[in-house]
């Protein structure tokens, strides 16, 4: 099947790609073979591009009759051993909530791309508005932990999608890629690495050696939460029944539901060092800290450079993974700060509340809310100067 392998990767080099298309190409390179979706602005380009490309590599791209059917079909495909993904926007995420909680119980790996738009309700469909950040954390009934990744440009949309697929295979929790109406339609230059470099990073779906333990469990001797490889229906590595009630590692119902919920949440929280990705910029001697994620970070970099020219000591701490929130790292950074500024593309400040939770009481946390328009570096610079006085 070398023809298929050739078609799986784009030619290495520089390409001009739209955000949605860059994400689709990264997904195909990472091994995506089933996509179930429903057209919704602003994520329609994903399904259009994949409908053209996936049959070329032997995959299946299906346009289902509604969002509920698309996410259920993605779960069905993932159970049979194929990497699967779906892409939608705010209203679609609301509809898919029940199935996401079922997938979290059964520990089925899948990737979900949310190209956010204005809300609540239908909203302005072509305006970006990061209003699903809190919803992604508590998406669906029941308690579970999710992983959310927030890229800021098309190059990151390519690289971090491959990371998202790897996380889904390793940690078996719902994995979200957070993009928005602007980033999805942005055309930028993307550096595509060579075939060997991509293949080194990708984690494929394979059967393990131990066929007894199929779901996550706590190892009594070491206290570690072990996550085995996902079971595949149609082979011998499959539990007797997939029942979405609290179960033990073999899939049979357990009389201790609290232990089950603890495993679902702690298997991610105990691995925050490996999962959480953050980036620091000019933080060594900073007294004022700007914490951000997604698009506003691009304006923050420029604002921080302008402020440093005037002599104000300020730096940027960027969250690449938004959930699980990296408590310990943020606490360490803001311990000696004079003020923390959190620019977000929403009004409530969902991540600002999390930052407030870990900062000391005397340190003010200042929000810069904006809805459907972008932060100009001058807005952030103004707030920095106000605090610096």
């Amino acid at each position, binding site marked *: 099947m070398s*023809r*298929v392998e050739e*078609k799986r990767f784009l030619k290495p080099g520089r390409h001009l790609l739209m955000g949605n298309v860059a994400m689709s190409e990264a997904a195909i390179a990472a091994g995506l*073979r*089933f996509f*179930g979706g429903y057209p919704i602005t602003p994520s329609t380009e994903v399904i259009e591009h994949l409908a053209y490309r996936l*049959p*070329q*590599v*032997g995959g*299946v791209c*299906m346009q*289902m*009759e*509604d969002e*509920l*059917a*698309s996410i*259920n*079909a*993605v*779960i*069905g*495909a*993932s*159970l*049979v*051993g*194929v990497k*699967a993904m779906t892409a939608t926007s705010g209203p679609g995420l609301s509809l898919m909530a*029940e*199935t996401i909680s*079922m997938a979290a119980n059964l520990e089925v790996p899948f990737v979900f791309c949310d190209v956010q738009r204005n809300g609540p309700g239908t909203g302005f469909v072509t305006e970006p508005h990061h209003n699903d950040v809190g919803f992604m954390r508590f998406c669906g009934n029941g308690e579970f932990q999710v992983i959310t990744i927030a890229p800021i440009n098309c190059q990151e949309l390519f690289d971090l999608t491959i990371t998202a697929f790897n996380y889904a295979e390793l940690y078996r929790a719902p994995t979200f890629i957070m993009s928005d109406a602007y980033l999805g339609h942005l055309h930028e230059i993307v550096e595509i690495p060579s075939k060997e470099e991509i293949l080194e990073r990708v984690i494929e779906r394979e059967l393990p050696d131990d066929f007894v333990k199929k779901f996550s469990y706590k190892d009594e001797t070491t206290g570690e939460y072990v996550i085995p490889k996902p079971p595949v*229906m*149609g*082979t*011998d590595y*499959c539990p*007797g*029944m*997939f*029942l*979405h009630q609290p179960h033990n590692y073999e899939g*049979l*119902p357990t*009389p201790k539901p609290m232990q089950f919920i603890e495993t679902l949440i702690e298997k991610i929280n105990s691995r925050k060092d490996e999962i959480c990705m953050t980036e620091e910029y000019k933080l060594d001697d900073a007294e004022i800290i700007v914490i951000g994620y997604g698009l506003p970070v691009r304006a923050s970099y420029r604002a921080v450079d302008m402020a440093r020219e005037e002599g104000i000591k300020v730096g940027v701490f960027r969250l690449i993974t938004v959930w699980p929130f990296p408590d310990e790292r943020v606490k360490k950074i803001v311990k000696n700060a004079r003020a923390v500024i959190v620019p977000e593309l929403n009004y409530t400040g969902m991540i600002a509340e999390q930052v407030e939770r870990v900062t000391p009481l005397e340190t003010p946390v200042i929000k810069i809310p904006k809805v459907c328009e972008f932060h100009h570096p001058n807005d952030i610079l103004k707030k920095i100067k106000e605090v610096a006085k």
Partner: protein
Amino acid sequence: MSIGRMLPNEKPEHPYVLASYAGSLFGNFATRFCSGCGYGIIGQLYTRVFEDLKLDPKLYPTIIGIGCYSQILLIVPAKSQKILALHGRAPAVATGMKMANPKMKPIIFSGDGDCLGIGGNHFIHLCRRNLDCIVLLFNNSIYAMTGGQGAPTTLYGAKSTTTPYKMFENRSDGVKLAIAAGATYVARTTVAHPRTFIKYFKKALKHKGTSVIEIVTPCVTYFGRKNLDSLGAEYLGVKGEKMDTGGKMIDWIKRNTVRINQAKFMSEEELFNKYVIGEFKYDPSKPEYSEEYAKIQKIAMEGK
């Protein structure tokens, strides 16, 4: 985990008990069904066909919806691979499974509220695509799991907890819906005719396309005990008494079923509250979805 009352074993045992899931886990057989429920019968027939034909469990995954029949996963064969889907979404999960692994043939267990109520949309599109799978629709004309509420298929004039005076809505018909949507093998049978069920099921296993088999089962605890014997056939002059045992409900079902060849000569009013049984459609010549998609994959892979 309580499965039900485990009563002491008696020798010799029913020949298919050890093949069922509960039997192989515990050695003894117990159901959680009520004493007159038809699902125990269907479980036995399904296990018989599975074991007699020696079907490969890896190629026939079972997808079960939410309802009273979800407990049937305790009495289907132990080696079959089962998954419980959400209420009404079983056809969508089957679509994903079949397209990702085209060698499989999913078997969907669904109920009347699950398939025609909340899952009506997914059912229609599954039949429209003519995907290769089998849908077994259990029709007991009530929502039994939650305590006996009215369903889209409840007969006219019946009593249920949400229609305590009288049920007056039009009944929805799973067979007509499946034919209109495009399924290629459609049949209906009842629990009182078990050998026809085995015959239809074996035919559906060989057929390439969507097969919909509707089975009319009795629900004694909620539908039988609250409704009279004469429901659906007032003009027959039958004495009205409550149907509180399985035997009386089997009798009632037999009185209210009409075979398809007879029904051609009966008028609309005579067929009003009755069940018409038989094979309604069989068309092996229509193209099947996953085969058509394989052709498209071939065109795409040969291209530039």
